[in-house]
């Protein structure tokens, strides 16, 4: 669909899980395998999106901000490239943030049917987040030599 639809999609993340679910077809497949999510049920989908609607910067869930970088596609399918960051998240992927703002980029493939998201496949870069949180990982390719964790994070 359009850049506008993609913005509405991300704004729905911030609004409520119910708003997000309205954008998906009744019969859908949502996959974010980085988080282990392969979801076909609206109740599960609502729970998956719930953290993104958090507005309290002090409860540890984090305030999650997204921006659309690029949308390439047509009314039937689109690749959406986006940037995310979270402030106030106590941990990410189980790693304590120690108050750091965390963020990364990703891309999402959408297939649409009758104006709704029929299929979603999202992948994003976990490695740069883990690096920023002090894990000994390298962002210099799959075969990069051994990385050393920074002394302080």
């Amino acid at each position, binding site marked *: 669909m359009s850049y506008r639809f993609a913005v509405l999609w991300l704004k729905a993340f911030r609004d409520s899980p119910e708003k997000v679910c309205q954008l998906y077809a009744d019969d859908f497949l949502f996959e974010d395998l980085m988080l282990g999510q392969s979801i076909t049920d609206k109740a599960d989908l609502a729970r998956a999106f719930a953290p993104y609607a958090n507005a309290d910067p002090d409860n540890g869930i984090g305030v999650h901000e997204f921006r659309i970088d690029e949308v390439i596609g047509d009314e039937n399918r689109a690749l959406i490239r986006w940037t995310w960051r979270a402030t106030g998240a106590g941990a990410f992927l189980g790693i304590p943030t120690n108050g750091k703002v965390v963020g990364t980029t990703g891309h999402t*493939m959408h297939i649409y049917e009758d104006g709704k998201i029929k299929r979603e496949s999202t992948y994003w*870069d976990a490695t740069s987040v883990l690096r920023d949180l002090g894990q000994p990982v390298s962002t210099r390719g*799959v075969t990069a030599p051994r990385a050393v964790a920074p002394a302080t994070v």
Partner: protein
Amino acid sequence: MPDNTDHAQRWASLITSDTDAVVAMFADDLLYDDRRDVDHVFDTATDKAQLRERLAPFANTDADNGLGIHRFEVLDVIDAAGLDEARAVAILWKWTGEHLENFRGVPAGGRTLSTRGQTWHQFDAAGKVNRESSYWNDVPVYQELGLPVLTPAYWEAGFDFSSLAPSS
């Protein structure tokens, strides 16, 4: 009409067997994003020399040099749409790496690793790939290699959020 499944199979095969041939699938004015970090210098290849540097390790055939022996299997092919109605495709794939000394800097000890990823290709009028956007699911590999990375199934009914509290 070129077949996107054929393209995906050819790409997945050549990337681990013939670097010259896989680089030849791309246009000279290519834009290749393998993930995106804060800087384009490493993450975005903009010519074939840079692309070759990024892809060559996947065609390694020496099981003893630490670079690993790699395999890509196409799981699904989604017909996509590029800019200005250009042909495009999304390829969902499974990667397996054997004999790796490290995976993204984490010691792998030569064990066999596997995960999935998603690659989007856009083609120019000559049928060459002029854009790529790729991301890997690194998370299960890091879990396999012992990093303290957690992915609790918080979206499942009845999930106990107290399980996320640090143990003392």
